[in-house]
């Protein structure tokens, strides 16, 4: 039996530099100043959460665990 409980197929975090594009929901949103900070935050979050960074191609990155 697998006792390891974890979220799967769910957005764990959102990283964006355009707050107008996101809002609400049950997911933490991290704001960044520029593209560079966004990438760095996303990378760190992905490593910590064990997820993958996906690009929605509108200045929003999401971190998803598959």
């Amino acid at each position, binding site marked *: 039996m697998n006792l390891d409980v974890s979220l799967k197929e769910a957005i764990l975090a959102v990283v964006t530099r355009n707050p107008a594009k996101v809002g609400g929901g049950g997911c933490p949103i991290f704001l960044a100043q520029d593209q560079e900070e966004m*990438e760095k935050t*996303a990378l760190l979050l992905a*490593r910590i959460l*064990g997820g*993958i960074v*996906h*690009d929605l191609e509108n200045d929003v*990155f999401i971190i998803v*665990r598959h």
Partner: protein
Amino acid sequence: MDNYLIVIVCGIVAGFLARWITLRSDYRHYPTYPHGQLVHLAVGFIAASLGAVAVPAIMKPDFVAVTFLVLAAQQFRDIRNMERETLTRLEETKLIRRGTDYIEGIARVFEARNYLVIITALITSLVVYRWGWPFAFIAGPICIFLSTLLMSGQRLGDIAEVVPGKVHFQGSLLMVEDVIIMNVALPQTKEKILKEGMGVLIKPKNDDARLTLDAPGQRQAIIHDVVSILGSKVDIAEPDLMPLARKQVDKGYLGLFIVANEPDLDYLMEIIRKVPVLESARGTALKSYFGRKAAD
């Protein structure tokens, strides 16, 4: 009585040898450890004894004994359960999983091999009983040869063409030729993928092959085999470089993407060609009337 002894011994030896020869432990075959092998050799020995004793039991004639033999043969069903359970347990701690289809296939093979051992022992002992022990040296090898021949199933290279595919990005989408694999955001990851990633297209030769490649279990088996030889750069909390096989939905072929520890495209393709076609995934559309009609 001496006569029976020779018959039984010949049967057991032939059956045991058959089990030994079919117990291959290469990169993807399980078990890899001496203890696991011992378990199977021991069970194989029991199976060989069962087969070898059957002929003298009938000739004696002792039909009660024969009935018991049939009952004993039932025990070999547990082999499949045992293998399935062990492999399924081991899956939980694997980075790249075998997939249940592959496990089921392996477990079935282990069960089937014991029946082959019984048949080999049975035929050999029958031949020895009828014509004398020197003939064991003919009947035994023939049986063993036939069982290895009959039990080697199709390989992916038989049903599909494997060709190199170019790994590239379309915006944030990772592609192998025209197959979309996944969405990658980070520039570092993209760079690494472009530098070290390998892409391959697996093109089915007919409709049956297309159905086979559709099965996620078959794809997982391909990935598992590739990773177990070439390695992958996936780690526990870093699934970015997960090897994936995705379908070109319109044309039906697969695109496979991997970042391997040993980036050697030629061997990658060769390994994929050698992946066994799983029984549970095998497509049989062309065997049906409508399947053949729809195919043209």
